[in-house]
């Protein structure tokens, strides 16, 4: 049985070319990038090349890129390190109800340290409406953090507009772009953001590496303290192979982006239409068109998400229900609830996120298998008709 991976928003396989680029840095060019000897200098050159590759993908300068251990750490640095270092600028943060836990839990943590958090609601399509932000801004708002695309429902947020509103009010703007970098065009200058988080493993790069873009205006400080790596902005021995992989992944993403995005948009729309047509009592979550290419989130009434996943898995189809990070939990997704989806439907949600290797045949297969699975589970369900 051919397996079909449709969980690219959770993580992606490392691209073969990315892996090849990383290989020499494990056993041959293994030096510490801070060392002055030749091993160290080779390592450091490779890291600087990767910094250029990542910067190029998002329209930044290399010196604006701080390599971190992933998107989560980048979010922590943007929010916690920024707020703790800028107490004098204000103690108020604005974020949205559909952010990743990497943002929300930083805000919760800051709230326990005496900061004030405003969590903006979203409309039923998952959009943070600019007017909502305007109303929430205060003279003491130091930071606004709104994600570029939501990881569960795929809705794209109007970041350029939101950032402009925040700047008018004198606040710094951060966006968690973990789900968009490499998938749709992301340009920090066009978006007008001050801080941006990205993660390599969402764009066919390795796990355990990401970056924080930070412009000069912000003067971001370190979150992980120690040695002087990353220009004093992120301590810890430089993860040379990981960063090299991130760089290569960024380069490849830049080259392939237009073709891949067009293909995935098409596959996604076909899958959405097919599911809504073939399976009654099904609704699409998130925005119908302003969404991540290839990302599909649907809710089926009267059935539960995990049992759908397990049955799909027995057909070799891998998907997720809500965010993979929280799939150990039994709480319905905070994102679906924020969109106003009833608790029971939130429990019956399914996320299918396609990637560069998915095909039309994969979509056909899901459209063949899923209706049967939902029928079987509904026959078992005490709910509904």
């Amino acid at each position, binding site marked *: 049985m051919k397996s079909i991976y449709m969980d690219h928003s959770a993580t992606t396989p490392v691209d073969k070319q990315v892996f090849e680029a990383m290989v020499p840095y494990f056993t041959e060019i293994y030096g510490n990038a801070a060392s002055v000897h030749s091993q160290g200098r080779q390592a450091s050159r490779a890291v600087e090349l990767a910094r250029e590759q990542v910067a190029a993908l998002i329209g930044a300068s290399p010196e604006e890129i701080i390599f971190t251990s992933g998107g989560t750490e980048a979010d922590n640095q943007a929010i916690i390190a920024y707020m703790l270092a800028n107490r004098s600028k204000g103690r108020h943060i604005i974020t949205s109800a559909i952010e990743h836990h990497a943002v929300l839990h930083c805000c919760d943590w800051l709230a326990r340290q005496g900061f004030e958090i405003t969590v903006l609601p979203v409309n039923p399509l998952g959009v943070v409406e600019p007017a909502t932000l305007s109303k929430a801004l205060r003279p003491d708002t130091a930071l606004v953090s709104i994600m570029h695309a939501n990881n569960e429902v795929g809705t794209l947020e109007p970041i350029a507009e939101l950032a402009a509103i925040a700047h008018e009010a004198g606040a710094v703007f951060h966006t968690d772009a973990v789900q968009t970098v490499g998938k749709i065009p992301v340009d920090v200058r066009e978006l007008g953001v001050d801080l941006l988080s990205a993660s390599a493993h969402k764009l066919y790069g390795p796990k355990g590496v990401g970056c924080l873009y930070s412009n000069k205006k912000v003067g971001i400080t370190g979150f992980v303290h120690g040695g002087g790596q990353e220009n004093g902005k992120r301590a810890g021995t430089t993860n040379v192979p990981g960063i090299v992989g991130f760089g290569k992944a960024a380069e490849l993403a830049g080259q392939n982006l237009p073709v891949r995005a067009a293909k995935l948009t098409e596959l996604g729309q076909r899958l959405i239409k097919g599911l809504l047509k073939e399976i009654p009592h099904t609704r699409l979550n998130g925005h119908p068109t302003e969404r991540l290419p290839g990302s599909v989130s649907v809710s089926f009434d*009267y*059935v*539960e*998400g*995990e*049992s759908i996943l*397990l*049955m799909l898995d*027995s057909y070799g189809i891998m998907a997720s229900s809500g965010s993979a990070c929280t799939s*150990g*939990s*039994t709480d*319905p997704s905070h994102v679906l609830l924020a969109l106003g989806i009833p*608790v*029971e439907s939130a*429990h019956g949600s399914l996320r299918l996120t396609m990637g560069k290797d998915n095909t039309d045949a994969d979509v056909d297969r899901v459209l063949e298998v899923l209706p049967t699975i939902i029928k079987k589970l509904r*026959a*078992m*369900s*005490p*709910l509904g008709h």
Partner: protein
Amino acid sequence: MYSEKVMDHFENPRNVGEIADADGVGLVGNPTCGDIMKIYLKIDNDVITDIKFKTFGCGAAIATSSMVTEMAKGKTLDEALRLSNQSVAEALDGLPPQKMHCSNLAADALHAAIDNYREKQK
């Protein structure tokens, strides 16, 4: 995550369905927590002669429902009342810790069905 037994009962659940003229019906859980189980009993001379279930819930919820119906069938009501959520989980070779409370309601549903039957007898 799940034992082979759990997966077997999830993929091939035993005794799914309803009993139109059930002697006892038990319903536990609620849709907000994510698990609802309904158990139907046919009882003859204090013995469970037929049992069916309907469940909304995760893999663990479906597997425990299926397992409890197998364990209860043919038992007297007093014997069936001695089945616990714990013994159902053990019969499935255990459940992941995070699934122990929320989905492990099958024995409760069985007990609720027996109570419903005894209520009606009064």
